[in-house]
């Protein structure tokens, strides 16, 4: 049973990919991806229940392992994948009608998305650092063609930058992995790169080697998580990828990479004391926040705007991870989920806006609320969720991170971060309000009444926001999982 439960999140999407490879894109297969995502979500929930009631499980000769943290990440993947894949058929259909895609591209899109899901599930289920690295690099490879799907100049350019920068960054992580392996072989032979054993024996690791390894790992996985300094692929890739893929990348992929950093930090803290990784992460986090703030101020493209906002939120996560401790880690995990939901809603929404208006420039979208009230409402509320307003869960998680930071003596960093977040909020609100508010513009574009939004696509937006708000009100059943995962990372039983 456990075997099945653990393998399902990887195997189900892989099977989905096989179906698309064989059957292609047709009416019957349109909903396969959503169904597979739903299955992933279901198994994730079942796994969580199992993990909460029981100890961590290991399968496949110790290659896969699930503990509270992996289970939580699986839930995140499942939930956001479900949202994104539910909106996919409508998106692809519209693209096909508009002549921007063919049924072949659609089939390939679905296939790659399924592989993407499998790779992400594998990443969080991996029992050791090496497997994790393989899975994370696999996500890059799989998504490269999704980013470049449209084959336009910007799309190809984005795909190139994405692959080159991410591969370079992730290569650093590989070097770090090897070095960590080296250190662990010398102090605790046999531990290898296994998370559980590494964490248990981390205090014996050689600090000299571990320091280098940790720096490389954090910078390397930070690349994939969209953290400075190797963040630059993110706005390009997220703005060029099709909306559901952007949603998945921004909502989950970044967090999956960040998950690796969380794991590494546990080892770094045990081996080097809390100061080392904390300093590094604080610097990276503030750099990411500053960068995001700087580039959001004069932003002209709403998809890039959302992408930079993702950098911001990854910066906040890094800050939370730097703080450490139960509260901060729980907040970080909650933030991962909340940000994933809100950001995927926003990217899906931006996809609709792009399809309706044909432009991704902020100054060419006007009076959205007058034309598409539901879409505009979701987009506006989503942005408000991003800037951390209740009832959305990002409020609670940002507050948690901030509180933990002040309590941990990182007051100055926290205050600087909050000021940057304020600047970012101002920029986001300003840009969004220009798009959403105001009377419907008169002009050639406005005369053609925009089509009503597809019910399911609209429902995905609303459900995403509602979920984000719901976990902001109460985490309910997620609570034990969250606290268990936080205990796991914070090092307290």
């Amino acid at each position, binding site marked *: 049973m456990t075997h099945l439960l653990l393998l399902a999140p990887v195997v189900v999407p892989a099977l989905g990919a096989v179906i698309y490879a064989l059957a292609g894109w047709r009416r019957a297969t349109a909903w396969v991806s959503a169904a597979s995502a739903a299955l992933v979500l279901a198994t994730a929930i079942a796994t969580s229940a199992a993990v909460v009631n029981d100890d961590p499980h290991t399968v496949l000769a110790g290659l896969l392992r699930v503990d509270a943290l992996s289970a939580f990440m699986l839930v995140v993947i499942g939930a956001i994948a479900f949202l994104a894949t539910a909106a996919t058929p409508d998106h692809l259909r519209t693209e096909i009608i508009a002549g921007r895609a063919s049924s072949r591209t659609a089939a390939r899109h679905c296939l790659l998305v399924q592989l993407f899901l499998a790779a992400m599930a594998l990443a969080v289920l991996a029992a050791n650092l090496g497997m994790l690295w393989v899975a994370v690099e696999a996500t890059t490879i799989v998504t490269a063609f999704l980013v470049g799907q449209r084959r336009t100049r910007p799309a190809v350019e984005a795909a190139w930058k994405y692959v080159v920068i991410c591969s370079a960054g992730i290569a650093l992580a590989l070097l770090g992995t090897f070095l960590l392996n080296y250190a662990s072989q010398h102090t605790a032979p046999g531990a290898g790169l296994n998370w559980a054993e590494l964490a248990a024996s981390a205090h014996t690791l050689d600090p000299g080697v571990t320091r280098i390894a940790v720096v490389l790992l954090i910078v390397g996985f930070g690349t994939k998580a969209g953290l400075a300094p190797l963040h630059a692929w993110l706005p390009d890739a997220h703005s060029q990828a099709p909306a559901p893929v952007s949603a998945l990348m921004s909502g989950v992929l970044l967090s999956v990479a960040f998950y690796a950093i969380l794991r590494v930090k546990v080892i770094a803290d045990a081996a080097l004391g809390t100061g080392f990784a904390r300093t590094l992460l604080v610097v990276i986090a503030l750099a990411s926040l500053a960068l995001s703030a700087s580039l959001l*101020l004069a932003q002209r493209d709403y998809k890039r705007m959302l992408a930079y906002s993702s950098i911001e939120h990854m910066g906040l996560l890094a800050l939370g991870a730097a703080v450490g401790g139960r509260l901060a880690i729980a907040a970080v995990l*909650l933030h991962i989920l909340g940000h994933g939901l809100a950001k995927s809603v926003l990217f899906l929404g931006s996809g609709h806006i792009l399809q309706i208006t044909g432009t991704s420039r902020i100054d060419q979208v006007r009076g959205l609320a007058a034309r598409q009230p539901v879409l505009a409402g979701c987009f506006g509320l989503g942005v408000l969720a991003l800037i951390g307003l209740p009832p959305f869960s990002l409020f609670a998680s940002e507050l948690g991170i901030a509180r933990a930071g002040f309590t941990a003596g990182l007051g100055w960093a926290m205050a600087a971060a909050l000021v940057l977040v304020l600047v970012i909020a101002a920029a986001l609100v300003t840009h969004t*309000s220009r798009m959403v508010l105001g009377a419907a513009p008169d002009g050639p574009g406005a005369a053609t009444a925009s089509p009503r939004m597809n019910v399911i696509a609209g429902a995905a937006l609303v459900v995403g926001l509602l979920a984000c708000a719901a976990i902001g009100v109460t985490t309910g059943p997620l609570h034990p999982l969250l606290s268990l995962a936080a205990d796991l990372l914070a090092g307290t039983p």
Partner: protein
Amino acid sequence: MNLVHAGLGAAVAVGVLSALLALITPRRLRLVPVGVGTVLVGAFGVLAGAVAVAGQAYSVEIPALLPLFGVSFAVDALSGLFLVVTGGVAIAVAVYGIGYARHGLDGRGVQAVLPLFVLAMLLVPAAASVGTFLVCWELMALTSLVLVLAEHQQRDTVAVAGRWYAVMTHLGMVAILIGLLVLVAHSADDSFPALRAAATNLSPVVANVVFVLTLVGFTSKAGILPLHAWLPRAHPEAPSHVSALMSAAMVNLGIYGIARVGFDLLGGGPRWWWLLVLVLGALSAVYGILQAAMSSDLKRLLGNSTTENMGLVLVGVGAAGLFASAGDDVLAGVALSAALLHVINHAAFKTLLFLSAGSVLHATGSRDLDALGGLRAGMPVTTWGFGLGALAASALPPGTAFVSEWLLLQALIHGLPASGAATAIVMPVAVAAVALTAGLAVATFVKAFGVGFLARPRSSAAANATESPVSMLAGMGLAAVACVTLALVPSVVLPAVGSASTMTLGTAQPAVSGQVTLQLNGVAGALSPLLLTVALLVVSVVLVGAVRLIAARRARRTARLWDCGAGPLSPRMEYTATSFAEPLQRVFDDVVQPEQDIDVTHHQESSYLVQAVEYRQRVPDRLERRLYEPVLRLITAWGSVARRLATGSVHRYLGYGFYTVCGLLILLVVIR
């Protein structure tokens, strides 16, 4: 059974239910249930607050809500007072809203958010932990933002106002957040009792940081200088009943925050805190009323007047803190009572004024005083309502603000025992500021009422204005009743004010007491607004009788206005609001620095013959020029410079990483 619990619980339940109801009911059937629901929310809030003020203590914790923090509420006398004020305003506004929202404001979103906004405002003073407080505070910001934006499709200025509001409210929030979290970092947990306990052995530096930061946040919410810029934008652009809620209820919570953090959580503080508060208050009072005096937009005028009144309240709060830090509990009590009483009074008359302004807007579609006038004929009830509110706002007897400003001056006048060098300088200035504010307020509201409602209509919209529907009048009526009651028998709220201020300051007995006559306890001072009014009435009646008796019993005769023999007078010959304010503006030329624009068009035949002269004048907010524009310019420059960070060059992007990695490695080598 705990009535506070029942009241708050019922308010939450009814509020959420009304919001849901608004979402599912069809447009035609929506307004009445939502209105009734909002009235009930307000009523339950009043109930809970009143019971709390009467002395019933209440606290509850709900750990399941708000992840990572849990929610806890506690209502004491101070909270209770603000609950009553908010609830009371909400009742009048909700009744009014039923009629007002009929035209364009009956959308699902706006109607669903209205009860939630009221609810959020009720929960803010009830919050008893930092997490709860902040979540309620932000919910209030979010809901009010949605309401401010309600009419964004009608006017472009709404979006601008919304942006200002959203950004500045977030700025305030960040300041409060940092301030409170610094405090939390020094305490066991984030509940208010824990903070109180921690504050006793807090280092002065930390306490200063906490106070100053929270002060920044709370003053921005209260529309106090220099973070006031959103207020005269957002309050006018919001639908009028929302303006009333914001101006009469929401801004008060800024005052509540200062009192809660400064007095309660931090337990008072050094003298300079309160001097700062007092000075900010005095500056805001004068600046606010000056801007109001220059304004010819009716709702902007009212918004600026909110800044003024909150300034006056802060003068009271600051004086209270000053006296408390000097150990003079009696005077501190008087000052705080004055401040709290003014909060209540301001809520009453500002509600009435905004609702009346909304009624005018509803009937004429304009809030430009220069285009109004003569409304007394078509809208008698609204005219009476606004007149009553204007009387109250100009601090003349028998108006409400008169009583609280009297109390405020009483506190200041007795400030001598607490005198130090700083006090001796600040007190006279504060007195002068309050006095100047009173004088300018008179001029401002004479302008608003006289130009807007009396005289002859200046536009056809004003000429054809008809009275608003009954529900709107009923809402105004409720506010008017509150105004009259507070003006004549302020003693009805004295116990509440007394228990709130004694609780906040930890003093033994209330500073002000009395039924007919307000009597200060411990220092000399008495005033009876009721007797004053009765005296006025008696004299008037006697006078009418006497005039009848001695004067000729000839009937009044109607006649033409004197038109200098030049034919009938047209509205264009009337004084407008702008021209009315012109002499005052000349007086304060150096402060307000108006911008003038004169275009002279000449006849084609000769440049000596003038065809037309166009004159435009604007009174900009000078503070904005000096303070906000440089910051905005700086941020814009930052944004455009920063774009060079993302030029699109993949080499550059990779370079960022390469140099960072090399740098980090070198660092690792160097600091082993």
